[in-house]
């Protein structure tokens, strides 16, 4: 183990936020889900006892007869806000006094930084560059992420879970979002930060960053595995493979959407447009981990090669 190398990565000033995230995100996942499960227990109780459901205040927060539903912002909210800003100011002050913002040598186009990394919050996208061409990793994926996020309220036809933590009433939505946010976004950011070294090569934590390491990996295209050598057959095979992926994963996604009795109820509330948008976004999303797996397990570079673009 090269502890020094690990320390160099972890203690880089610009990596402090990611180290913070390693602790903050699991904490808030736990913090949120703990409330979700508490609410779920309450929901189960109320579903089983309609009489109680009629008189219960229906929150996990404490409640007493005669308590006002609302409190004055001054002072009950403003004091919390003041406290929060003071705490953050103190953290910022201490952080700024103790750690200097990074400043490298003056910009020099003739001296390439190796590894040359994007800011940490974009490292997920840079990591995707390994698996997809830049027009997908750098343009299509970000666009899909933004459009997909914006679309969420319009394709989530589940009316439950509006304004309270719950898992039981929104399993599909929450699991999908957590998969996207925690695995496809944050995990890739962490890989880009802690794992990728010179030449964007894979170095396990504790491995020394060897600037002279060479890896002879021959990535092959899907059609090469099949022994197909000329267009238009190359394009056709790729088209069929991608088409097959869309059909199979569209089908699996559909199975997921109608998995339980409750899910079928939500599905019945969807319009065709909502359903197709959801399918398109999800099938695009599954493509990312699948392509990562294809590359890591079978060393496949492209599945579909055409003269204009390759996937």
């Amino acid at each position, binding site marked *: 183990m090269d502890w020094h190398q690990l320390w160099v990565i972890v203690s880089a000033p610009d990596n402090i936020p990611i180290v913070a995230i390693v602790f903050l995100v699991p904490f808030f996942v736990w913090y949120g889900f703990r409330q979700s499960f508490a609410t779920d227990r309450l929901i189960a109780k109320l579903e089983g006892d309609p009489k109680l459901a009629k008189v219960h205040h229906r929150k996990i927060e404490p409640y007493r007869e005669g308590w006002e539903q609302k409190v004055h912002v001054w002072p009950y909210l403003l004091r919390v806000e003041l406290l929060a800003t003071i705490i953050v100011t103190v953290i910022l002050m201490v952080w700024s006094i103790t750690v200097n913002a990074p400043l490298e040598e003056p910009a020099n186009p003739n001296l390439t930084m190796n590894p040359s990394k994007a800011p940490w919050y974009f490292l997920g996208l*840079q990591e995707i560059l390994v698996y997809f061409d830049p*027009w997908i990793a750098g343009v299509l994926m970000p666009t899909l992420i933004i459009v997909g996020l914006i679309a969420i309220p319009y394709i989530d036809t589940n009316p439950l879970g509006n304004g309270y933590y719950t898992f039981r009433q929104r399993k599909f939505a929450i699991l999908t979002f957590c998969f996207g946010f925690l695995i496809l976004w944050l995990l890739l950011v962490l890989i880009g930060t802690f794992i990728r070294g010179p030449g964007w090569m894979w170095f396990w934590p504790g491995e020394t960053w060897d600037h002279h390491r060479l890896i002879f990996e021959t990535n092959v295209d899907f059609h090469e595995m099949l022994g197909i050598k000329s267009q238009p057959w190359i394009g056709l095979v790729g088209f069929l493979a991608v088409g097959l992926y869309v059909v199979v994963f569209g089908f699996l996604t559909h199975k997921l959407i109608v998995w339980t009795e409750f899910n079928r109820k939500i599905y019945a509330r969807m319009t065709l447009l909502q359903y197709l948008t959801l399918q398109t976004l999800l099938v695009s999303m599954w493509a990312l981990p699948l392509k990562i797996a294809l590359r890591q397990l079978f060393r496949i570079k492209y599945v579909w090669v055409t003269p204009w673009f390759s996937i």
Partner: protein
Amino acid sequence: MADEEKVKDPEVEETPSGESRPPLIKRLQVTLQPFVDKGKEDWNAVRDHKRTQLWKSVFRHKLDDTPRNRALAVLTNVFLHLHPAKVNRDAVRFRFTWGMGGLSLYLFIVLTITGVFLMFYYHPTKGQAYADIMYLHNDVPFGGLLRNMHRWAAHLMIITVWLHMFRVFLTGSYKTPREFNWMVGVILLVLTSLLSFTGYLLPDDQLGFWAVTVGTNMARATPLLGHEGPFGPELGITAYNDVRFALLGGSIVDSNALLRAYIWHCIAIPLILSVLLAVHFWRVRKDGSISGPSPVMLESEMKRPRK
């Protein structure tokens, strides 16, 4: 009689007989009495300053602890009036909101203030920019602290914005009637990243230069609009007219790119972001304040969708 009266009258200044005049000190007292009275009036007003015109012109409500005054304290203050007068009693708990939205705003304010100070010391020109940062960091009093704070607050803001989005998702707060505000929030999230990214280049060091080179190289590959993207060359797109050229003001990351990053970072994006922030907060209020914690709805109570 007439003479005596004349002598006793203190108003008469030029009297020939000095003995009958009151002493100088007495006369002064009499002269100054009106001023003393006025002064006492003012002193009393200062002691009871809440009744002065000055005070009343600034503060529009009394300060005794009544529900009405608590409401007015928020509603008559431009900085506080983003809040409603009253909120859901359970919403002031940390555990529901995590305070991440409010902290994002606070960090944006910190960044604006430190950013303005940084602008006093910075020229967005090749060669000068790096020297300015060195000067700022090593010679300007508190310059290092200023720059560090700007940098770390920016990183922190990205984290708080992400966590804010995560919380809003977990509580289902994007659902009707808040769909549009979620959309505005997503755009704010993107703008926050862009703001941070454009700031990355400004020190004009190796870190920023190569990060921006890597970042903008992706724009080469934009479908239709990039010279290396699908169908780009077919449409006559070259390295000198594609979307990357527009971002950098040239075909390489150079002085034009520095100037453009500076203007996006210091003027354009903060302006757009501020406008959208106003919309975001406005909609939070108009869509019924923050979403919860609201009473749970049961599956058995689901209504048929309106068609």
